[in-house]
């Protein structure tokens, strides 16, 4: 269940209250987010839409703990992240967040296997266990046969699937996807969205998606629009 009115029951996986984000540009103060509230339950698939500069990516960055709010609080799985120290926040990200980027952001000198393995290097898993997890993640995204390929040897869609495998390999609490289909053709974009939908349906993942693409947004259970710094509920689509 997704709510934007700040009246969630407190059992939400993600709970945002009174979130403000301001930027200073010269002498001008820009309010990107203003008192934003959000409740997302585990297993939800939420799409955020809105015009460029509306603060979608900023919201995602704040939820992922790679940016700090000007005011307000974000609680994920009971952890209030807005007041965590930088080092705690880093450790928290490793455990709870899977990022999927528009430009894939794979490391070009590492193979698909090594890219997917990156988050696992931060765990205490043995080499054999890491291999098992990576193979499973690449299997889920359908690239088990490409694990020794470098990013330059893959298509855009395949690169993004490797990016998704990297995001899910450590079994994070939720996935944050910033325009994951923005750099793909329609067919590849559909494949990526199929994959995200499957992660929600079959693996119970929680996915928060920022997109400009209405077709991609349609796959989400809930579409929220960012307007003047606050979220407005859009259309809910049944994914089950």
């Amino acid at each position: 269940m997704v709510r934007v009115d700040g009246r969630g029951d407190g059992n939400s996986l993600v709970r945002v209250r009174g979130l403000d984000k301001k930027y200073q540009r010269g002498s001008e103060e820009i309010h990107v987010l203003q008192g934003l509230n959000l409740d997302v339950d585990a297993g939800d698939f939420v799409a955020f839409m809105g015009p460029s500069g509306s603060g979608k990516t900023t919201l995602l960055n704040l939820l992922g703990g790679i940016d700090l709010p000007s005011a307000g609080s974000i609680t994920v799985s009971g952890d209030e992240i807005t007041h965590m120290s930088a080092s705690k926040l880093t450790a928290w990200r490793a455990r709870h967040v899977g990022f999927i980027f528009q430009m894939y952001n794979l490391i070009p000198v590492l193979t698909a296997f090594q890219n997917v393995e990156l988050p696992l290097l931060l765990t205490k898993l043995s080499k054999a266990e890491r291999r098992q997890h990576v193979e499973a993640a690449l299997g889920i995204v359908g690239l088990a046969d490409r694990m020794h390929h470098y990013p330059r040897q893959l298509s855009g869609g395949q690169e993004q699937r490797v990016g998704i495998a990297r995001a899910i390999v450590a079994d994070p609490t939720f996935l944050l996807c910033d325009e994951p289909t923005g750099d793909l053709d329609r067919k590849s974009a559909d494949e990526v969205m199929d994959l995200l939908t499957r992660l929600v349906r079959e693996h119970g993942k929680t996915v928060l998606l920022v997109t400009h693409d209405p077709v991609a947004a349609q796959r989400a259970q809930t579409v929220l629009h960012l307007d003047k710094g606050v979220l407005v509920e859009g259309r809910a689509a049944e994914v089950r």
Partner: protein
Amino acid sequence: MKYRHLIFANFFRKKIRTTLTLGSFAVALFLFGFLATVRGAFNQGLEVAGANRLVVVNKVSIIQPLPISYKEKLAQTAGVTLVTHANWFGGVYQDERNFFPQFAIEDETYRQMFPEFIVPDDQWKAFVGDRVGAIVGQDLVKRFHWKVGDRIPIKGTIFPGTWEFNIDGIYKGSRPQDDTTQFWFHYKYLEERENPYWKGLIGWYTVRIDNPDNAARIAGTIDDLFANSPWETKTETEKAFAAGFVKQAGNIEFLIMSIGGVVFFTLLLVTGNTMAIAVRERMRELAVLKAVGFSDGFVLALVLGESLLLAAIGGGLGLLLSKLFTLRGDPTGGMMPYFYLSPAAVILGLLAALAVGVAAGILPAWSAMRLRVVDALRRV
């Protein structure tokens, strides 16, 4: 080490740039090794100098002689336990470029005075019994492909005429830095043939003393003994004597340090620039690592690790080449008999290379550590 592939993968990211940077380190460290070897060659006398030996020379100049009659008086000086003497011969073997030192020595005392030079007993015995015999260092033997039994003609420059010697023995050093390019023959042979003007004169004395702590006092006693005579003396420790020789060649130490300093500073600039570019190109990737959960400290260590790897491989390669070069021996044809890159210099070179690696990597690593994920991901 599970992060090793991360460092090595970046190492081979830009092969040409990596190769050029490695080359810079290799050239700089090769030069360092070469300069350290030259410095060692100049300071060799200092390193091998015996703490319990004094050198007595003519007060006017080393090239002025001293009477052989001083030997008895020196031997009677309190604290002196052994006296020997030698003359510089300055002959030419075949060609003037074939330089090597030839000394006319007093055989038995000379061997006792310099126990670091090892001559087999049977060869020494043959030398003592051979009026025109010679003992030669093993490096000299290698250089001219001599062997025991060869007859060697040497053209005198200070002592005219052609002098012929039989090689009766070969000495070797007991330490790697010992000079094994010398040629010794009997003082008696020189005295027999030399100009009457030189009769009864020797080049310098070496005396052994009972206690190195008494060196200054004994040196003073010796010089006082011959003060106001026609042949006044200047006595100093073997180390001070060797240092005087080094000074005659100019401030080699300063020259070498200056060249080395400039080379390392240039290397620092080149490597620092390379690392800065390498990090700037990868800001987005480093941001992704941080987003995924790698700590600031890890990113710092990763960049520094790459810089250190460059320094270690490039520096190691340069020092290896330098060592191989010095193994070929003295390139000057005898001016630097001790042409040897010591393990201490190799270690110092490696440490210097690593220090450059740290210095070159620290600023880019610091900026990578301070990188804000959001800012870096926003860059296209």
